[in-house]
């Protein structure tokens, strides 16, 4: 499903964010990506849908190359990849429903979408997605009037409306408290199980990865230093990923 080879990224004037990363993710897998902040988790996820162009290396999603793809190809690939952001990235002044309908933009005709005219089927799809994440009834609220946990659910609903094959989640819980984190993690798990969606979620804490991941990939200083089932995450492995200071 997802295949990255020799992926490296160096930001101008900055340190190396990714250093020759190879990663294969099969369809339907639920992968958690762990590592301290600055390990390159965000950069890796953003390279997978072309939001960040790597300095070197290849990425293919569903056999389609992402790196240096044409704008058209890139849009087609992105349409199949839902992305959930650490800071939700909702359009604050828009309603909850409009934020979710943004997820259908790649499917609808351009001109009507500019006039905020969406087909009834898309509006219905957006309402269904909101019901699924537990936000039915909040369609007309302005996005920035919702709590953090609710906003992240809107972000997930937006991704679901894309009807994607892959869901990338960039530290979706780090702006939320632990109880909310667990319920959102369960939601992602459900989506993975019910829709057969491939999910890659980066996390900055270990316990969520251990209790919810089926495969844990550990990243440190831009390199993959661990890849295996949660059971293989011994204390020494965790120490290697996070460094002794953080344990």
């Amino acid at each position, binding site marked *: 499903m997802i295949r990255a080879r020799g992926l490296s990224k160096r930001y101008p004037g900055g340190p190396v964010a990714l250093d020759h990363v190879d990663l294969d993710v099969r369809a339907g897998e639920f992968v958690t990506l762990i590592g301290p902040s600055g390990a390159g988790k965000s950069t890796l996820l953003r390279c997978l*849908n072309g*939001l960040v162009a790597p300095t070197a290396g290849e990425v293919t999603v569903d056999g389609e190359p992402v790196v240096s793809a044409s704008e058209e190809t*890139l*849009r*087609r*690939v*992105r*349409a*199949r*990849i*839902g*992305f959930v*952001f650490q*800071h*939700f*990235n*909702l*359009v*604050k*002044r*828009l309603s909850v429903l*409009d934020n979710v309908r*943004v*997820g259908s*933009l*790649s499917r609808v005709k*351009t001109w009507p*979408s*500019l006039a905020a005219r969406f087909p009834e089927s898309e509006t219905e799809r957006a309402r269904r997605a909101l019901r699924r994440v537990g936000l039915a009834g909040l369609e007309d609220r302005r996005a920035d009037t919702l709590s953090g946990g609710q906003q992240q659910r809107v*972000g997930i609903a*937006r*991704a679901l409306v*894309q009807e994607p094959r892959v869901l990338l989640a960039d530290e979706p819980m780090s702006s939320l408290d632990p109880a909310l984190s667990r319920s959102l993690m369960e939601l992602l798990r459900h989506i993975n199980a019910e829709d057969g969606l491939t999910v890659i979620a980066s996390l900055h804490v270990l316990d969520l990865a251990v209790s919810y991941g089926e495969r844990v990939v550990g990243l440190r200083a831009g390199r993959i230093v661990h890849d295996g089932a949660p059971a293989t995450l011994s204390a020494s492995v965790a120490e290697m990923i996070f460094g002794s200071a953080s344990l």
Partner: protein
Amino acid sequence: MISSGRWAGGLAIAAALVWSLWSTDVSLRRLVEGIPFMLEFVRRMLPPDPSVLGQALRGAVQTLQIALLGTAVAAVLAVPLALAAARNTAPRWIFYATRTWLNVFRAIDTLVYALFFVAAVGLGPFPGVLAVIVYTTTVLAKLFSEAIEAMDPGPVEAVQAVGATRIQVLRWGVLPQLGPEFVSFTLYRFETNIRAAAVLGFVGGGGIGFYIQTYLRLLNYPAASTVLLVLIVMVMLVDFTSSRLRARLI
């Protein structure tokens, strides 16, 4: 501890103030001696002459039109200029060039532009409109470009990430953030431009200012005071409506 730099700064400001006081012939004695004249001036304006009310209203409407048209055209022109003057949307050399030219043109006030356009296209409201357009474009372009620079890139990235086209990204990621701000800035400039347009008539640029100046020159103070009252009411009405609208936008 007060640093020596602050001491030097304070001294420089004090020196500048004394120097200005000296060179502008400020005199408390002359101010006091002028008080009876001011009272006489106000006394001669009362009561206002209602017979020029129609004229004053026509002038006020023309001032309103000058400000409205000038601000609207300026708002449209300011958008592309703002994109060229924002660090995050323009290449470096275009950014610096546009900023520099905007600063140059913004250094000159509407009234000075009016003098220039009156000389170029003749008397009347038309040169007034042109003057409002030029100055307001430079101000709005600066305000818009700062709003563009302060825009949250997160939602824009999110709309890109769903596979939207460029124009869809503009419509759903950029416009909801910038639209209300642009309209708010434009309304604010419209309020200011009413005041600016009210004095354009002094230099032949049309509107209510023409009547103020004419009646003062003719020493017809009751007529001048009617025109001034109309101006005050109009400015207050526009301020009130516009600020209510702005409060609703944000």
